[in-house]
Each structure stands twice: as C-alpha cells, then as structure tokens.
C-alpha cells in the first residue's frame, strides 16, 4: 500500500512540475514586440541541391538582416504534419513551417496559426502576382492560411530509347489516352521485366491525384459543387478509371508500385517506358534520355493537376510573427523565386516571373524538360476540394482505384463503394 501511495505522490509531483513548466514557457513567449534581435525556427523538407539553394538564400537573408536570424531545420515533408502536431502539444510550434496544401484544413484550428488574410493584401506580398491555383490552395473557408512555397504538376515523362527500340512514336501534345494505352502496351516486354507505365498503388493521395486529371478531363468531378456529396462515381469517373484498369488488368502493361518508391530507380534503369509524374523526379533520371510531354487528353482536354505546398506561420510572441512574415514575403518574392528556380528547377509561380521570357529561356536550360512543366501550369484548371473531411474522401478513392487496378472489383463497384464511404465521412464532418 505504502509503495503505491509513494508512486502516486511522485506522479502527482511530476504532473505539477510539468504544469508549472508549461506556464513558465507561456509567460516567457507572450511578449508584444521584438525587444532586440530574434531567431526564428524554420522547418523545410529540402535535401541535396534543393537544400543548397535554400541555404544560399538563407545566408543572404541572414547577412542582410542582422536582427532576424533564420535557424533552419530539416523535417521530412511527408511527416511535417505529424511533427507539427507534437510541437503544438508541447506548446512550441516552429515560427515557420513547410506544409502540404492538403494539410491546411487539418491545421486551420491550431492555436497560434497566423491568419494571413489581411497581410497578403499588403504591397510587399503582391498577392495577385501569384497564379490563381496557388492562391486558391492557400485559402481555407475564406481565410488565407499559407503562402505558396512550391507548385508541381503532372506530365508524361518518357524514355526515348525504349520508344525507339519498340518503334513507337514519341508522345505529342495531341495524344489521347487511347494512344497512351497503345504505346504502354507496345513498350511492355514481360520476358525482360519491362513495363510501359508505372502507377503509385499505395492508396495514398498520390494514387488519387494521378487519377484526378483523367476524371476532370472527362468532365467529371470529385465532389458535388457544394462539397456535400461524392461525385467521382459518375459515368465520367468510371470511364476515366477504365483507362487505368484496361492497362493494369487487361494489358498488364503497368508496373503496380505498391510501395510508391521503386519506380524512380526502375525508370532510371530503363525498365519503365512512361511515367506520369512531376518535375521533382527529373533529377533522379541521369541515366535515361528522357522527354517530357503534357498529359494525354479526353476529347482534346489536356488539363492537369497542381500540388501546391505552403509556408505557414505560427505566432510565438515577442515579435516573432512579424519577423516571420517579413522573411516569408522576402523568400517568395520574384528575385528569390528566380534564383531558386534556376538552381533547382522548381517551377516559378508568380505571373511576373512566368512572363519574363529571358528568364524562362534560361530556366529551360537548367534541367531538361522543366520548361514543359512550367508551361503546363497553364493547363491547371481545377483544384482538389480544401475541406476537413478530404483525407477520408481521398482514402476511399485511393482504395477504390487500387482495388480496381488489382482486378479485385470492377471500376463501377469500386467507385460506388468509395462514394458511400466518402458520403459517410462528409456527413459526419458536417
């Protein structure tokens, strides 16, 4: 008995200590204005040459702004939301963090998240200069919660050597999905373990956003206009999915990448003819003579999908928030965007930069094919719904696509089942 009581006392003491500790932290950080130089914590997910480019910009900023020092920390983008959750539980979020656009609804209610709606209207931001798709993706329920950090889109990357060997003509801007399917079939060689196409099959958002452009091109949509019901199981949606199942199940011309990672290595070793992917993968293909072409289309509609990522800002008091905003405005300004684009191949997404022809010419020479991706931003017509229940809608769609492509369910049944699940989630979230 006595021992148990002592353990209890120790626990209570620790709890008390933990609580007091928390209070101390809060009172230390709730100052009003900066009382001298500040150091800002800054989370980003860049590695390798992308990190080199970012660090060069940070050095420049730190040299020019002795009062505001940026302290960068690498955080894997795929787990940035989880790490932020832990930091928020500890009451110490970073001042600035990189987050996927799709995470905005999740962090919209986070304590300390800075609402940027008024600030982006200030002249130093020049908000209207960002492409519309990026601004929409930064806005959740009318509030601007992030500043666009990076935009990708999907296009076809193909191995020219494999096309030549198979005697197939290179993709062109007028291709239909039937052309794409025929080429994938011709490029497949089971004896040599060679596939015409590869598809991410981990049922994640990556699986889903590869399907979205087909759905949209064919006139379908993910949800109804008021975001209250699933709409992807329409005849247009089923037809779009049948393109993928036709290749995966009937032709067996698709490498079904359940891990969603071996595909880069396999493409680079000449085992895959075509990928639908974004500019971030191009630097992984040094051994392949590749070409880039915009997506095939339905009835001449070649629209693609954009994946915008965001810089989000948290208010840690003591003038940190204002300093963080000053820095983010500088980092996303036209000059810095140009410098970073030339160093990394990141697509520029300010209109003033895209319209600068001298710059675009130079940009096309950095990594072969990035200019096609840059121009492809003009083929972005729609965005995925930004809402709290989206992760569950996405999960249902991902499972439907994978089950249909594995031949477990026919496309109509798979999408109908997913629509029922998505509707439940949407109803629950209200």
């Amino acid at each position, binding site marked *: 008995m006595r021992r148990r009581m*002592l*353990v209890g006392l*120790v*626990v209570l003491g*620790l*709890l008390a200590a*933990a609580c007091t500790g928390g209070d101390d932290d809060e009172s230390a950080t709730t100052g009003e204005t900066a009382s001298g130089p500040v150091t800002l914590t800054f989370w980003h997910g860049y590695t390798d040459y992308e990190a080199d480019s970012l660090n060069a910009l940070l050095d420049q900023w730190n040299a020019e702004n002795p009062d505001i020092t940026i302290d960068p920390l690498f955080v894997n983008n795929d787990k940035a*939301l*989880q790490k*932020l*959750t832990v930091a*928020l*539980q500890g009451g110490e979020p970073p001042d600035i963090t990189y987050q996927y656009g799709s995470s905005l*609804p*999740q*962090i*919209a*209610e*986070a*304590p300390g998240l800075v609402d940027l709606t008024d600030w982006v209207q200030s002249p130093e931001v020049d908000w209207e200069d960002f492409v519309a798709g990026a601004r929409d993706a930064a806005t959740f329920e009318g509030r601007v919660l992030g500043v666009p950090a990076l935009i990708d889109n999907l296009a076809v990357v193909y191995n020219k050597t494999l096309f030549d060997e198979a005697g197939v003509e290179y993709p062109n801007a007028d291709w239909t999905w039937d052309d794409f399917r025929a080429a994938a079939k011709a490029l497949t060689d089971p004896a040599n*373990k060679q596939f015409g196409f590869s598809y991410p*099959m*981990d*049922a*994640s958002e990556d699986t889903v956003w590869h399907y979205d452009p087909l759905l949209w091109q064919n006139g379908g949509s993910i949800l109804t206009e008021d975001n209250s019901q699933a709409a992807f199981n329409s005849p247009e949606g089923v037809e779009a999915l049948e393109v993928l199942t036709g290749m995966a199940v009937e032709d067996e011309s698709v*490498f*079904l990448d*359940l*891990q969603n990672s*071996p595909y880069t290595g396999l493409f680079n070793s000449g085992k895959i003819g075509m990928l639908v992917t974004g500019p971030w993968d191009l630097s992984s293909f040094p051994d392949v003579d590749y070409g880039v072409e915009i997506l095939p289309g339905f009835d001449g509609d070649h629209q693609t999908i954009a994946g915008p990522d965001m810089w989000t800002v948290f208010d840690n008091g003591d003038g940190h928030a204002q300093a963080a905003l000053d820095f983010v405005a500088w980092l996303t300004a036209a000059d810095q965007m140009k410098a970073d684009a030339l160093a990394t191949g990141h697509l520029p997404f300010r209109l003033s930069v895209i319209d600068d022809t001298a710059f675009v010419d130079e940009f096309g020479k950095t990594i072969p094919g990035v200019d096609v991706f840059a121009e492809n931003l003009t083929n972005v017509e729609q965005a995925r719904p930004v809402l*709290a*229940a989206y*992760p*569950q809608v996405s*999960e249902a769609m991902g*499972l439907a696509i*994978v*089950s249909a492509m*594995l031949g*477990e369910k026919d496309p109509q049944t798979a999408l109908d089942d997913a629509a029922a699940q998505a509707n439940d989630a949407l109803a*629950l*979230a209200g």
Partner: protein
Amino acid sequence: MRWRSPGRLGDLTAGRALRTVDRFRRFLVSDHAAGWAFILPSVILIAVFGIVPILWGLILSFQKAGLISPEREWVGVSNYAKIASDPKARQAAVNTIYYSALFVPASILVALFIAHALNRRIAFVRFYRLAVFIPVVTSTIATGIMFLWLFDKNYGLANWLLGKVGLGPFGFFEDPNQAMIALVLMTVWGWLGFDTIIYLAALQGVPQELLEAASIDGASRWSSFWRVTWPMLGPATLLLVVWSTISALQLFDEVFFVTHGGPLGRTSVVVFYVYRLAFEQGLGSLSLAGYAAAIAYVLFLVILLLTLAQFWLGRRVVHYSS
C-alpha cells in the same frame, strides 16, 4: 515501520511534530529511502512516458478532440459505442486476429525446432546461435527494406528461387491475399532469435537423468521429447505464448513501414488504424483522436483479459519443476 510512543511528553502537539520529524529522519536513513533513490530515475521515466500518457489517453477517450484543434468536448462513452458500427475498425480487428493466430503458433513452433537443433554438440554451434539472434537486434527499417526487395513481385530473389522449382510468381506484399502471410513470415524471422534463446535456456534446464530414465524404460526419442522434454518446457512456452500474443496484438512498426496498411487495407491492424485516425486523418476539426484513444483502450482491455486468461489456463496445465 513500527512507531513506539514517547509516552511521557506532556505537550501533545509538540510530541506529534517531533514524531513526524523523527519519522522522516528514520525514513531518510532506512532501506526504503535508499531503494526509492535507486529506482527514482526509472520511476520518473515510466511516469512521464507511461503513466501520464495512459491517464491522458483515458481522459481523451471520453472526449471529441483532435490533437491540433484546441477544442475539447465531453461526449461520455459515445466514442466507445461508435466502435462496434465502424467497418474499418472491424476490418482492423479481423486483420489483427488473423495475424496473431498465424504469428504466435508459427514463431513458437519454429523456435522450438531450431532451439532443439541447436541444443547439441555440433561444430560451429556458437556461430549458429549468434546467427539466429542477429535478426532480433537488427532494426525494423533494415529488415523491412530487405524483405521488400526479397519479396518483390517482379525483381525479388524469393520469386526467382521459387521460379526455379516451378512455383509462383507470388505477389507477396502486393497481393491482398498474401500480404498478411508475407508479414507473418517477415516478423517470425525477425523475432525467431528471441524465442529460440528462451527455449535454449529452458532445454538446458531439462535434467538429463529424466531423459536417461525414459530411454531405459524404452521410450523412443520422439516420445521422450513429447512426454518428458515438452512438459518441462511448459513455463517457457507459457511465457512465450503470453509475450508473443501481446506483441502480435500491438503490431505496428512493420505495418507502418512495409505495407502502410495496404494493399486495400488488408494489413491495417488495430494499432495502425489508431495511428491513422489520431495522427493522419483526425488532426483538425474532424477531431478523431478521442475515438482513436477509445479503440486503443478497448485493445488494452482485450490484451489484459487475454493475458489473465492465459495465465489462468497456464496454472492448470503448466508443470513447474522445483
């Protein structure tokens, strides 16, 4: 501790104060205080990383709360009530039971076989014992990467070898009907060393004279194993059954890294589903962390009851030698 009253002191209050001080002084020099001082570091660690989260999780399970959104709403037992009608929770439960039903007997039987093989005088026995144990100290990530390549449908070594004898190709982690079995193979391999060491120790504790007596009485090797050795291994088997069941029901790392619950949710086990709800899907205004905590508590109760049942059964069938 016994306290003898000082008796003669007139002033009761002063006496009480003195008594308290004296009691505290005695405590400081007693074995109790020294004992507590020694275990204090672990007590603090267990409290901070064990007891506090356990209590916090219990509170959370009665709330509608997300880990990011600051809003908390008391909802009574409705999180618990929701579990029964959640098809994904049911799928996770079925997957977990399926995994445990394969993993526990497979890992114990294979370990018994290998321990028996290693419990004799053969050349390089130390090397074999070391080799069997190495997977246990290898990180899950390394094991996972290795098995992903080994079991790759198109380029893996396993399919290449099986192809040589006319089998396959198998989808392994990529086939919804084989993924769980592939996961069992991988985890049995990973945990084999631990079970083997326990059995090896137990086998070496089996008295030789019993086996000799059996053979004199004309018992074959087979029957002396099942009639003499196997009962003597009872305590070790009970330990391994309990331990393996608990770890099987809590499977997470391998699923998180290797299959991420797929394909088609066929390897989505309970702890992985809890993680997805609390840390991936329900962070914001969906507020699913409370629901996830409720599932975690149900799992805790199931494990507790199962363990008690195993010990109760064990007391009736396991033979403890003196």
